[in-house]
């Protein structure tokens, strides 16, 4: 077959293929029918072999380029992955994520360790020398603590403000967790920074409250949502540490290869933590800042933490 035959015979088929692919790539037009998809598959293979032939026959560059692009477009249609479904979502939270969590728990534990170490350091620092608190906390926060009446439940937000508060906290926490994962790509340094920064903040705040004799108030303000929230953040930071670890020690793979392989897995760790962050933010918006008895609030916090722990340990066991 020479070039003349090739073009003469196939032109109509190339154009048909191009037209079908064009239709598929448009969002608005209607999707290809099963028969048309089969047609695309057939025409694609023809075009692929035509491309090879055209190269062999030393066809004009324009024709080769035309066929190359046609085949490339067909390739990206034919070899695409199956779209995910609700079933996949259920399988993820029912099996994949808790199993992944149990396999990667050392990273989560490491994240918790870094956080608690800095929290403890800041606590001791502020406890020993109260002026340290001015290095660690913004002035406004300190004043807020100092000005508040010393009974528990004094921080009560207007009912009208709660949804806003909750949504701001939710997006903030998910944003922080997302960064904790993404910053892992800088050899985990960014993740450690996030852990250290937030740990020191919490530790300093706790010590300041304690010095003012409001230790219990602090607990009732932080623990109801804090237990679940911190667990979720540790998981997300664990994802970032995982990325950092494989970049430091890629083993037998190249750094790039190790990254490409572990990034989706780490992403799953982060994604698994998101629902917990949503629940924690709802608690923080709708339960923590209310006049409900402190005992009730703490029970809610404990129950949420215990539920998360139970989920991580028990769900989806092989």
């Amino acid at each position, binding site marked *: 077959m*020479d*070039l*003349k035959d090739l*073009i003469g015979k196939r032109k109509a088929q*190339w154009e048909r293929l*191009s037209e079908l692919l*064009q239709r598929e*790539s448009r*969002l608005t037009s209607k999707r290809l029918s099963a028969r048309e998809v089969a047609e695309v598959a057939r025409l694609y*293979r023809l075009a*692929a*072999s035509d*491309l*090879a032939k055209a*190269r062999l026959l*030393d*066809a*004009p*560059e*324009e*024709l080769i380029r*035309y066929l*190359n*692009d046609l*085949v*490339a477009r067909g*390739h*990206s*249609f034919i*070899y*695409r*992955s199956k779209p*995910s479904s609700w079933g996949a979502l259920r399988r993820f939270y029912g099996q994949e994520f808790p199993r992944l969590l149990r396999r990667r728990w050392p990273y989560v534990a490491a994240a918790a360790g870094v956080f608690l170490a800095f929290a403890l350091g800041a606590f001791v620092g502020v406890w020993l020398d109260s002026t340290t608190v001015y290095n660690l906390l913004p002035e406004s926060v300190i004043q807020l603590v100092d000005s508040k009446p010393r009974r528990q439940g004094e921080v*009560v*937000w*207007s*009912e*009208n403000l*709660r*949804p*806003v508060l909750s*949504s701001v906290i*939710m*997006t903030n926490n*998910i*944003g922080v967790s997302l960064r904790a*994962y*993404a*910053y892992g*790509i*800088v050899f985990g340094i960014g993740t450690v920074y996030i852990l250290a920064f937030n740990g020191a903040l919490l530790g300093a705040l706790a010590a300041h409250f304690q010095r003012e004799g409001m230790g219990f108030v602090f607990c009732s303000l932080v623990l109801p949502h804090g237990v679940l929230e911190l667990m979720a953040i540790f998981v997300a930071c664990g994802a970032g540490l995982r990325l950092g670890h494989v970049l430091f020690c890629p083993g037998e793979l190249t750094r*790039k290869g190790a*990254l*490409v392989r572990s*990034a*989706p897995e780490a*992403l799953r760790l*982060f*994604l698994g933590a998101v629902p917990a962050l949503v629940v924690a933010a709802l608690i923080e918006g709708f339960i923590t800042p209310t*006049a409900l008895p402190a005992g009730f609030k703490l029970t809610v916090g404990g129950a949420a933490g215990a539920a998360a722990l139970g989920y991580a340990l028990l769900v989806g066991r092989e």
Partner: protein
Amino acid sequence: MEEQLVIETPEQVELSYELAGLGSRFAAGVIDSILVVLVVIILVVGLVFLAGLSLSSFADFFDVEGEGGPPQFKFRVLSWTTALFVLAVFAVYWGYFFFFEVVTNGRTPGKKELGLRVIRDGGYPITVTAAAVRNLMRAVDALPWPFYAVAGVTILFSSRSKRLGDYAAGTVVIKERVPDYTAKTDKRKRSRAQPEQPGLAERYDPRLSAKEAAIVRSFLLRRSELNKEARERLAREIAQPLMERMGVQEDDPEAFLLRLINPPTEKQAGPTGRGEPPSAGTR
């Protein structure tokens, strides 16, 4: 020079893609960012419209429980609307790129405008996971926000124009050449690839190697798109070594090249007309 990405399909045919450079990606990013901002503005307008209904006593909104009397319905509406707005902005900011890259197989509106597409390293279409990874990595790539300096630097230093998100997801951004190519090339193909074409493709002066013939041929095909200077310079550059080797001296290098590729056999009169398509002699 445009950089190429060559992959082999399961049909064992090589495909080459043109990698998208910093410039086109930046332009696509600008378009997408404008769209994101537009969506947010629409959300703001919607919220302000709602708020306008109840703004008369905004102070009550921040009232502490028990002092301002029973919370009124409109504040509750406003509060929930604001909460939804906060969530919506967050979802739009982080979800825009992800959504479009998943739904339209690797092209956000901005990329579509610039003819770009995200594919995976092996040439395969983007997956949901890859789209999520590469777009969450914007948290790093966009630093210092919103200048995307990290992304810019990594794209420049990467052999495949990858930003960090592309490294983590195993993706590349390619330039897809004009999607409506058929319509445009139809005319060209008719004038070139029709009956006269095979002569051009198959016969050439036996003193030429196949490679040389291919070079001469592609020059002849493209010469009408070149400006005068480039055309003459290229013709000279290509013809000179060939003339020297063959011991010929010609004044018009282009005519010489034409004769090489379309030797005056049969009843052809040896086309020498400048600017005529190579097929002119057979007409």
